[in-house]
């Protein structure tokens, strides 16, 4: 079996063994969204106005929730250091892990956002734009929070620290996505901003695995 197939088989089995990691962020997202009308106002015009932005931010937080410990258990079990002995560049293996993580932990989140959209009476065309921004932007967000997770592997309170470190990189993605949502609400052209978001994700997907592998090496070097 090739190393890639072995990696994929292992990641799939780990995802199946930890269903909570997939469902907890989904519950979190639905919980936040269902609280918004209660805390704010059930006025559907107001909710439709802010709904898409609320859903976007809640999805970002849910994504951070399930990515902050991306490498933690492999690191503390000592399996991560075994990756260095596989006959493949570490950055390539990290890239595979990030792709599988996005498919199994982030895509389910995106899939339930239409339900959240209905709950906040977001208009259909804005909802479609919302889904598109999430599909295009979440690879970048997954990469950045994965990098935060890798950088803080060695420290005990790694979760929140990793998020803090990566915050500046989330900001442009959020601003661009918000721009798309505002334009979608106005009914103006969203393609240029979507292209920028896509470019962000592509650059992240190419460069971040290299940075993650350097961070992992650094942390493995510092541990026993």
């Amino acid at each position, binding site marked *: 079996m090739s190393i890639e197939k072995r990696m994929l088989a292992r990641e799939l089995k780990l995802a199946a063994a930890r269903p909570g990691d997939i469902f907890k962020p989904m519950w979190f997202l639905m919980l936040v969204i269902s609280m918004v009308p209660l805390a704010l106002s059930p006025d559907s015009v107001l909710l439709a106005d802010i709904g898409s932005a609320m859903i976007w931010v809640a999805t970002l937080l849910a994504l951070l929730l399930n990515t902050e410990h991306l490498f933690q258990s492999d690191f503390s079990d*000592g399996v991560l250091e075994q990756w260095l002995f596989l006959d493949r560049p570490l950055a390539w293996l990290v890239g595979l892990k990030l792709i599988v993580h996005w498919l199994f932990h982030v895509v389910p989140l995106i899939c339930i956002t239409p339900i959240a959209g209905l709950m906040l009476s977001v208009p259909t065309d804005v909802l479609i734009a919302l889904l598109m921004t999430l599909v295009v932007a979440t690879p970048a967000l997954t990469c950045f929070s994965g990098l935060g997770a890798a950088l803080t592997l060695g420290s005990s309170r790694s979760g929140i620290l990793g998020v803090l470190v990566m915050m500046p990189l989330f900001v442009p993605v959020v601003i661009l996505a918000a721009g798309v949502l505002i334009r979608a609400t106005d009914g103006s052209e969203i393609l240029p901003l979507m292209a920028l978001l896509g470019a962000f994700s592509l650059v992240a997907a190419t460069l971040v695995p290299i940075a993650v592998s350097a961070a992992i090496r650094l942390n493995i070097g510092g541990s026993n």
Partner: protein
Amino acid sequence: MIFEPVSLNISQVSCERDDRLLFHNLSFALRSGDILRVAGPNGAGKTTLLRMIAGLFEVQDGVITIDQEPLSERRHQVLYIGHKPQVSRDLTVIDNLKFLTGFDEPVVKQALIDVGLRGYHDSLVKELSQGQGRRCALARLWCSEAPIWILDEPYTALDVTMVETLDRKINAHVAQGGLCLFTTHQLPQSLNFETLELGRVD
């Protein structure tokens, strides 16, 4: 399987960690058939030295080569088992080994029988006892094609029978032209090894 002759050269390696000099200008060479036990008190740098040779800890000063080639080129010839569990708790014994060794089910199952884990292949690692978990990690030795074995405290949590089985395996490995470095505080009875004593350098 017979290995090609392999040599491991450690020359003038020094290590300082947290402002403490662990070892200084350490040089030795190992060839096919050698077994080296790295000994020394707790904190003497045994694990650090093994991790350096395995390429997990950066060599700050000095050179480590395998067959005159830098370590990074020959990673896949090294099998390192550290003192962390080395297996994922949420996966079954067989899934862990299939990932780590790349071998198919029959080979891995045979390895599990050899380490006394017959019938445990579908158990999750978190359901095993500590000694069984250790056996699971060590089962990789039974399906390894790497000539250089680096074992950090391999005897921890093993019972007498497993210690003997492991000794036999290490002997068979070096007889095939492999070489083995390990650390332990127990003296293996049936191994013919040399000892490298790491002490504190002041």
